[in-house]
């Protein structure tokens, strides 16, 4: 790489604090702790995959051979691979570098606290939107949750949040209601949009 460090130029160019790969070097203790957390997480993932394969294998005993062949082959190949992977995970002392052809890991920076905060804010937004969809329907929940998130987290201001609300609502109505005649589920509480504008939309 060029001798002139990308750090300075990068910091001038970027408004955020993202790092393409790596960040502040970790202490030995932090590395061990991270390795343990990663191993535990991966073991949970492998456990779920094992449970799925076992279920698939047992359930396939009741199917005709023509329907059972491919699933059983998947189980026969998959279970030993899971076993091998569990063995590697439990044995390793250092988190190995990962190189993948077609996928990338999460970009880590030197501000993990704020990264975690942004991560949970986004999860909260998705949870809020999903809950809203179940309780009040898509027309209300999707534009409103997005606009509220943009106002509080995105800090875009009231006017732009309201504009986004209108744009998203218009998209849902024009594209999904009018163009593709979407079928919407009945909300658990009530559907404010349908109550107010349902007749108008149906007339379009």
């Amino acid at each position, binding site marked *: 790489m060029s001798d002139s460090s990308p750090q300075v130029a990068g910091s001038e160019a*970027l408004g955020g604090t*993202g790092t393409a790969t790596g960040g502040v070097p970790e202490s030995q203790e932090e590395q061990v702790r991270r390795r343990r957390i990663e191993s535990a997480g991966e073991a949970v993932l492998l456990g779920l995959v094992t449970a799925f394969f076992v279920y698939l294998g047992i359930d396939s005993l009741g199917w005709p051979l023509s329907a059972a062949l491919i699933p059983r082959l998947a189980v026969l190949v998959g279970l030993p691979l899971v076993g091998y992977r569990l063995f590697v995970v439990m044995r390793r002392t250092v988190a190995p570098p*990962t190189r993948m052809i077609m996928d990338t890991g999460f970009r880590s920076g030197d501000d993990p606290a704020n990264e975690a905060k942004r991560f949970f804010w986004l999860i909260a937004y998705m949870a809020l939107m999903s809950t809203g969809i179940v309780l009040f329907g898509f027309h209300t929940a999707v534009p409103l949750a997005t606009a509220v998130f*943009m106002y509080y987290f*995105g800090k875009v201001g009231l006017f732009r949040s309201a504009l986004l609300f209108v744009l998203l609502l218009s998209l849902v109505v024009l594209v999904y209601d009018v163009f593709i005649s979407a079928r919407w589920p009945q909300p658990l509480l009530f559907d404010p949009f349908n109550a107010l504008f349902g007749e108008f939309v149906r007339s379009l």
Partner: protein
Amino acid sequence: MGEALVEAAGLLFAWGPILGFLVVLPVALLSGLIPGGGLPTAVVILGFAWTLDPLVAATMVVFSMAASDITEPVPSILLGIPGSRTAQATILDGYPLAQQGKAGLALGASYTCTLIGGLIGAAALLIALPMARHLLQYFGAAEFFLLALMGIFAVGVVSQGAMVKGLLTSTFGIGIATIGYTPVGNVVRADMGLTYLWEGINLTPIIVGLFALPELIDLVASDTRVSKKAGSTLLKESRSQVYEGMLLAIRKHKLLLLRSSLIGTFVGAMPGLGGSAGHWISYASAQATEKGAKETFGRGDIRGVIAADSANNSSDGGVLIPTVIFGIPGSPGMAILLAILIIGGTSPGPSMVTDKLPFTMALVLTLTIANIVVVPIMLFAAPFVLKLASIRPAVLAPPAIALVTLAAYSSNFRTADLLVAAGFMVLGIFMKAYGWPRPPILIAIVLTPILEQYMNIATNAYGWSMIQRPQFLIILGIMVVAFVYSAKMQRGAGSTQETRSEPVDVA
């Protein structure tokens, strides 16, 4: 072929595809410029696939893929942050050039290489079609079964440093794909007592959860973005050098450009590798063969940019060859294209080079059009487009999340699909965090129904004597050789990646 080409042009220059291109173009341009990954355009198109004409949906996906490939090197060169995984090799020499005040040279060379590479990839696809037509006469269900198997496991095998993970995710994907009712044996499989699973798990929520949402989460959490001022300043200063860079690529390094384009096309056509390996392999090849490259590559050698970006865009034509002709997608984008074709009732295979040849030709023309249209746009409008890319991820991502949520629901109008998307999002986050490749799952899910279909036809038609068919044995032999060769080439490219690619700390 000539008539098919004319008919394809007639199909393409109709209101449907043209409107589709106009809708997709700004999104694709923006998507390629956002550091670290783009907007899930193909996923949203997949959500609408059942309502759109198959040609419109397929050409929109191909157009967005080709357009974003052209813009992806821009953040790599200007800011040292890849626009996507397929633009990582560009950083090695593109960013040092920008630091030396030669960003324009790199950009000009990049635009030229992506244009010519893309056209060569499209031409390769055009040449492959009549050859495929002759070849496919000898292929039966047994051979297509083998090709589908190769497609499923190829990605896993060539995931260097993650082969076991790749194979495991492929088999997991096969398991997921078998859930639900199958006409083979007339049985509902692995429904876990849930009526919802009788129809199987819908593909769109899986893609939304596994790919789109984790990428958007990464975008917001890392908050990596382009600085409006710095990006625009760099572009303005580099404008005069752009034309110099273009001429440099065409005149002085035309053989390298041509060779790299052919490497990208060839690698792209190899099942499982897709486009993300082509630029590394091309870069490694140029480093090994160009005069003095071992000392200068990685320090601002324009040949490094040419080698990477030519292969990056030419692979678009390459990956379409196995996808369209053999039904083997080489990348997640191609898996989505394949899913769109299947939803639209267009099965990949022999029909794509016989009665559906105009459809296939339309895809070739789409690639060509994308390259011809986007490069001039970037030449003149890059500063404006880059301003859009400087929008904060916290502002860009939520509307994108809203759109993919709607896409996940609208593919089948079942609320439970949102739960599926959420479940796969958790899985996708785990996999992304712990270095498990996600594309093998998607490719396995798309290909498993095809695999089973051909397996059953083959066993009914030939029984186990199918393994004595010469075509079967030849393909099996090619599979083994291709896997071994791919793995070796990946190791070579991987060692280049490891030695040259140092962490870029941009704090």
